[in-house]
């Protein structure tokens, strides 16, 4: 009998600790041992209340610390015989605050007075509307004392200011989540397939491909240990719209891509030889874009089908006599795609000036609607991000897009010998309903020949 009871108490003790740890499985198993006796009420922690299907365990916390107390915080007295001020809320209902954290500011007579929280807790109610007038002693807000939301939410926030300070623009650009959880964008990976998306006017809240990856991965290590939670951020309307359009484009166009490679030695040499004189005369730098834009303009006038577009509603092909080229420009606030109008009549200098002007406007936030709308052809430069090879996606309502990639030294066969040349892969994605394979390849080869030897333009070959 004695041994039996000792055994029982041992089991009892073990199962109790298992229950205290909150492990339901163990509890269920152990309660079956106990049920043989009778339901037991323990004075401190655990109460068993047998129900029809199984056993439920309830926890009662009776310690003082957990009693929630709601206090009303009043407006502090104002200095220098000032009588009233306007309240500006920093925190909202439901926010967790720590002791001394600023809940609101009161503006009195050119002075901004901070009102800190007297204790840690959760804001229960704001008793004055934002901008409302208060006097010294007016009740301001109700605070429920005690621990609020779990601290894991604080950890990523605390890391956020430290880590995102180095790239300050991306701090301003972090996607505006409704409940400011972590800095890691859980929606899309920060580095999109650049040639594909480089065309679209992305909203500010979108990704900064270069800076963003560094920050989230640094966080991933620290925060992953803290919480494996998800966060849901509502898709921005702009992003929704772009997504919808891209999908439509994919569904209507018969999209495919043809590739070629360009030997950049001649153009690099030309640039090196003339860049100082160019800068002196035109006051802007000579880049590679002008060569490609001019080449594209020439090729587009030679192959009007690539400059045309199918009007699906009227089932007509719209041929355009002008060439407007959309060029992707990266600004601190995101990608914008301004348009260079009537490129067919421009030379390299004109094109560089136009690109420069649009870039300046973009940086100064001066781009207007007409700077960004329209365009008959798009050029996207994935090379700035280091891409080697890729398929751009057409930017509707156009019929083709040229993707430039990075310039890398490669061994190539020149005149029967192996030489190292700076090579760039170029890609042309086109709508096969309108443009035939032969036209597309010829188009791309034309661009290649112009960039490889700009003299071709002079001789109209």
């Amino acid at each position: 009998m004695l041994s039996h009871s000792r055994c029982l108490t041992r089991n009892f003790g073990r199962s109790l600790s298992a229950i205290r740890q909150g492990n339901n499985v163990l509890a269920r198993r152990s309660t079956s041992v106990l049920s043989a006796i009778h339901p037991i009420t323990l004075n401190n922690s655990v109460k068993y209340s047998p129900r029809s299907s199984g056993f439920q365990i309830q926890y009662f916390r009776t310690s003082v610390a957990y009693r929630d107390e709601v206090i009303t915080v009043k407006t502090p007295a104002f200095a220098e015989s000032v009588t009233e001020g306007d309240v500006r809320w920093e925190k909202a209902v439901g926010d967790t605050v720590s002791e001394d954290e600023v809940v609101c500011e009161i503006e009195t007579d050119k002075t901004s007075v901070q009102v800190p929280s007297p204790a840690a807790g959760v804001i229960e109610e704001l008793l004055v509307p934002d901008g409302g007038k208060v006097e010294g002693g007016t009740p301001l807000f109700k605070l429920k004392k005690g621990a609020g939301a779990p601290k894991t939410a604080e950890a990523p926030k605390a890391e956020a200011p430290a880590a995102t300070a180095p790239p300050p623009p991306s701090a301003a650009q972090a996607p505006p989540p409704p409940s400011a959880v972590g800095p890691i964008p859980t929606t899309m990976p920060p580095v999109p397939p650049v040639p594909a998306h480089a065309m679209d006017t992305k909203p500010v809240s979108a990704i900064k491909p270069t800076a963003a990856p560094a920050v989230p991965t640094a966080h991933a290590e620290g925060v992953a240990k803290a919480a494996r939670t998800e966060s849901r951020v509502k898709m921005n309307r702009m992003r929704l719209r772009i997504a919808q359009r891209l999908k439509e484009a994919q569904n209507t166009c018969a999209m495919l891509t043809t590739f070629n490679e360009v030997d950049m030695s001649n153009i690099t040499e030309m640039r090196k030889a003339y860049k100082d004189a160019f800068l002196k005369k035109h006051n802007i730098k000579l880049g590679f874009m002008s060569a490609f834009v001019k080449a594209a303009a020439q090729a587009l006038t030679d192959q009007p089908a690539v400059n045309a577009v199918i009007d699906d509603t009227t089932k007509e092909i719209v041929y355009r006599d002008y060439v407007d080229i959309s060029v992707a420009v990266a600004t601190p606030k995101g990608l914008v795609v301004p348009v260079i109008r009537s490129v067919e009549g421009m030379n390299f200098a004109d094109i560089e000036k136009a690109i420069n002007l649009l870039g300046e406007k973009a940086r100064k936030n001066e781009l207007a609607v007409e700077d960004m709308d329209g365009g008959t052809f798009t050029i996207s430069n994935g090379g700035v991000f280091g891409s080697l090879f890729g398929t751009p996606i057409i930017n509707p309502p156009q019929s083709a897009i040229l993707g430039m990639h990075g310039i890398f030294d490669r061994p190539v066969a020149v005149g029967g010998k192996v030489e190292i040349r700076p090579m760039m892969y170029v890609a042309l994605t086109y709508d096969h309903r309108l443009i035939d394979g032969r036209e597309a390849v010829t188009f791309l080869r034309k661009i290649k020949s112009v960039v490889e030897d700009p003299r071709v333009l002079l001789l109209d070959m």
Partner: protein
Amino acid sequence: MSSQLSRIFSPLRAGNGNQLNRTRSLFFDSANSRAGLVLQSQSTDVYQNLALEDWIDAHVDLQQRSILLLWRNRPVVVIGRHQNPWTECNLSAMRRLGIPLARRRSGGGTVYHDLGNLNMTFFASKKGYDRQRNLKVVTEALRRLRPELAVQSTERFDILLNGHYKISGTASRLSRKSSYHHCTLLHSADRSALSSLLRPSCPHIQSNATPSIPSPVTNLTDHAPSLEWEELLDALVQQYNREFGLSCMSTMVDPTNESSFPGVSNMAAELRSWEWTFGKTPKFSIETQLELMDEQLDARCSASLHMEVKSGRVESCRLDITEDWLPLKLSKQLTDILIGERFCPHRVAASAAELLRPESGRLYRRLHNLCEAVVAVMD
């Protein structure tokens, strides 16, 4: 007295010594228990200077000492903590001129700073907070320098010249234990820039943000052309010492020095961010009529626009426009795409360009015209 002086200044005279030790000892030298400090910022970047103010307010024990900080900025418009930049200043003109906008942490109204405007910040404990006393330092200094100028501080903590022209405005901030009171002083600022930039960009805004009260201003040099900048600074430092019973010399500080002021560049970055400058605008709404035009058909139409903007972003947007002018679906698309976007003409223009892509002909023209009208409201 002299031993106290040498204790303050000997670390400074340590030649090419450690800048960190020098500045640290300025603030934390326990020998100077009832002492003060006069600092002059080397930077003319408003964000760095504002961050320095914040740093001093947060990190220096102001129960023991009071500090005077002298600074000036390259051209910038500075709004008060709870103001609305769209009603206070001409943002498009500022953009064109490359003049930035900054929001300070103290209350009060909007000011234009340039290198001809001197800023003074008086740091003290909350008990020692006395704005009239601080302004007395300025008025007494000016009276000693140029007794012929009639300067006087007002109840509203402005300083008037000849009873009429404002030469100084005030703002301050009270934190948990400390306080700072800063004021401007117009020495030789560009008055035409001031008046052209401090006018509202958007006329149709309703908001309860703190309004600025415009006053006629003048420069000290307009009335006392011989007054030099250095002369003015010296006189102010001397008067500060006289008023508070101190004997400090002015020390140059570099607000970008992270080792002397750890954390200051983070503070400056926060002040530079859009979220602070524009995102802290109290909620406001816009209600206006748009005049739409179709040039090709020579037709006109009127539409009403109502927008609610919270934290600088469009919270809700309603556009009432007749169905025959533009299909409801298109105007709805425009309002939808605006929600959640920053209240910024550039962002709206980018969104609008996106919408216009698939359109053509009459719908394109009208939608284009509508988008332009909406962008114009924000500019």
